[in-house]
């Protein structure tokens, strides 16, 4: 981020709204559609006021059929438009999975490069807001499995503001996972595009003893844990992956080659997930840089509970990260039991 760039304070939802407004003002092909994005202003009030500003042809309320409106977005993108499709929460995207996986992700391949799908899908992800087991998923890693898609997850308010532009400019489908907990969070936002590449991870805090690798909603958790660790004399480096497909191996390996220890913090479940993928890449590329086994802090392997205290206990917390870091620093093998 350039230093001569003035910043302003914004919330996550304001930053994303501003990103969409500017995209629509500067490019006629861009329009927004989804459930309740118009008259209601969006389920999380991200698009509040946009119907009045841009009218019903560019801010379109859709029927409650994810398969239909994601499919319509794919068609519009193939026809030359630059649609932003909002899916209310990630669990609803499962109803559109066939469109996303079998059409959006494959058409360039299936057409021998003749037809691309320049589509952006935004969806809300993550738990911690008492929305219970059916609306609190972190399926970012699932989508990261699929070739043909690009998956990004802003963890800072600045990325809420500035990731949409390069996502719309990409000739292929990009999914933006927006952690619901960050809509109300406040942060500094650059006033002009910092121009950071969409596919690169970012070191959010430098440190020499330990690398905390995370993204999205657990980035603030990791930064807070790093501050606590610093009071115990452990300087943790915090890496914000930003892009989950492709994964920026270079930044991860570079960090571990300096710190020699790593903890992956992922709000998804541990089994067969993104945290295992990151750990495997570290083992493949930097095994002989490691001074301790790679540890993971993930969400407990249960459907997220509704009671708030149980929900928070199931998710990665500052306390669990600090506790795990202490064991990694002692060189103890971190047991698989750290669920």
């Amino acid at each position, binding site marked *: 981020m350039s230093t001569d760039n003035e910043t302003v304070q914004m919330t996550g939802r304001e930053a994303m709204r501003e990103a969409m407004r500017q995209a629509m003002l500067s490019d006629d092909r861009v329009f927004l559609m989804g459930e309740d994005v118009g008259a209601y202003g969006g389920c999380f009030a991200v698009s509040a006021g946009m119907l009045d500003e841009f009218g019903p042809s560019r801010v379109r309320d859709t029927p409650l059929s994810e398969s239909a409106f994601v499919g319509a977005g794919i068609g519009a993108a193939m026809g030359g438009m630059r649609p932003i499709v909002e899916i209310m929460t990630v669990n609803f995207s499962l109803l559109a999975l066939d469109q996303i996986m079998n059409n959006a992700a494959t058409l360039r391949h299936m057409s021998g490069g003749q037809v691309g799908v320049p589509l952006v899908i935004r969806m809300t992800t993550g738990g911690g807001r008492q929305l219970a087991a059916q609306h609190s998923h972190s399926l970012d890693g699932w989508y990261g499995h699929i070739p043909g898609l690009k998956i990004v997850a802003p963890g800072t308010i600045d990325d809420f503001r500035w990731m949409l532009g390069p996502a719309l400019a990409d000739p292929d489908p990009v999914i933006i996972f927006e952690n619901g907990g960050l809509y109300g969070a406040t942060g500094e936002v650059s006033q002009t595009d910092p121009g950071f590449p969409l596919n690169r991870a970012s070191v959010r805090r430098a440190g020499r003893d330990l690398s905390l690798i995370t993204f999205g909603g657990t980035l603030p958790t990791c930064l807070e844990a790093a501050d606590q660790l610093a009071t115990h004399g452990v300087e943790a480096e915090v890496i914000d992956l930003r892009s989950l497909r492709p994964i920026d191996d270079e930044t991860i390996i570079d960090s571990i080659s300096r710190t*020699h220890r790593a903890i992956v913090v992922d709000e998804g479940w541990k089994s067969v997930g993104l945290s295992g993928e990151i750990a495997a890449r570290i083992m493949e590329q930097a*095994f*002989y*840089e*490691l*001074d*301790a086994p790679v540890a993971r802090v993930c969400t407990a392997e249960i459907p997220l509970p509704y009671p708030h205290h149980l929900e928070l206990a199931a998710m990665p917390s500052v306390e669990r990260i600090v506790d795990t870091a202490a064991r990694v620093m*002692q*060189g*103890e093998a971190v047991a698989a039991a750290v669920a």
Partner: protein
Amino acid sequence: MTTKTDVGTMFTMPSLGADMTEGRITEWLVQPGDHVERGQIVVIVETDKSDIEVEVFEPADVAELLVAAGDLVPVGTPIAVFEPVDPRRATTKHTAASRDEAPDTADAPSPARTPSLAPAPTPSPSPHAGAAAAHVTSPMIRHLVDELHVDPRRVQGSGPGGRVHRADVEAAAAASRRPKVSPRARRLMSECGIDPAVFDATSYVTGDDVLARASGPRRPAPAVCEQPSKADRMRTHIAELMTRSWAEIPHFHLAKRIDLGALTERLAEANEARALSDRVVPGALLLCAAARAAAMVPACNGWWVDGRFRPADDVRLGVVLSLRSGGILVPTIDRADEQTPFDMMKRLSELVQRARQGRLRASDMGEATITVTNLGDLGADSVAGVIHPPQVALVGFGAVHDEVSIIDAMPAIRPVVHASLAGDHRAIDGLTGSRYLTQLQSQLAGPLLEELS
């Protein structure tokens, strides 16, 4: 490698391959005052490729060592002074008495040494174990030694006459327990040459602990330990040689499919009568055939030097051996065209064993006149090789495998091998190369077949 002077015979750093320019003395196996017999290994020299055991060819007394172990010197540098002795006197004088501390080198010449290079499978007498000679190794003890990864020479028998009990093995295992070492620490130990034994067996060793031992201050520049590993140097060496070959030599490639039906049948019969350890693999026959064909077609057997071809007087066959750890070595077999299949098999087994131990001998590293690469049973069907300069030909064999052949106007399934020749077009032409492959084929069909009976 020796030159006569007034004071005695200068023993010089040998050239262990055409491309070797310098060598490092890894270890002297003799001291001034020792007597050495013909064939005795006196020094181990490290080259870019391997540790090589260097023998002497005449009996002598060691007068003086001129270069210390660890030093790197150019080829031809005098490294020791030997006093020649009357061979008759030498054979009657037994010399082992003064060499207790290194019994290996006092052994008779080469062949007898080979077994002592292998890791001892059972407890054997050694200075480390007091009453080691009295070890009794029951199957249970041997199994335990194996299971606990204990060096049997370090087990002290506490029973009558040094008999080893179960508890003795367990005590030795506890004493030799090693500390937990992180992957990074293991790498740094290897790079810095630090023995894991210096660390407390109950500790957890990290990379920083190793660096602290290596140079004092914590977190020094990692560069202090970054020396190229042996594997890296071998890779560099192969890269240089192959780049030179590919850049300088105008290669052409020929291939011939050779039916091995009769030969494999005869080989199976011949092997049936032989002990498992004496059995001959098809690869040995292919080496015999390649060497004999080289003798028949001398235009393929020699070197391209200073713009013209110099034929070799006899056939010294280079044999490409792949190492499990990566990389290749190319030891040679002298007068390979004169070997019977059974001799060739024996020679090949010895070479493979020594190459894998990283202990090839100077006599294994002569200047090859032609080289063979045999991809073996698990290899590809055929190979278009790269010539080892300054040679002019490289012979390649793919895996022996079944193919459909036409026999008496009928299709038949036969074992075949695809033989190939990479030729240096400056020295030889396609016709010469074809003649070579045809000769190779007739050797496999005729003389070798008969020798197996």
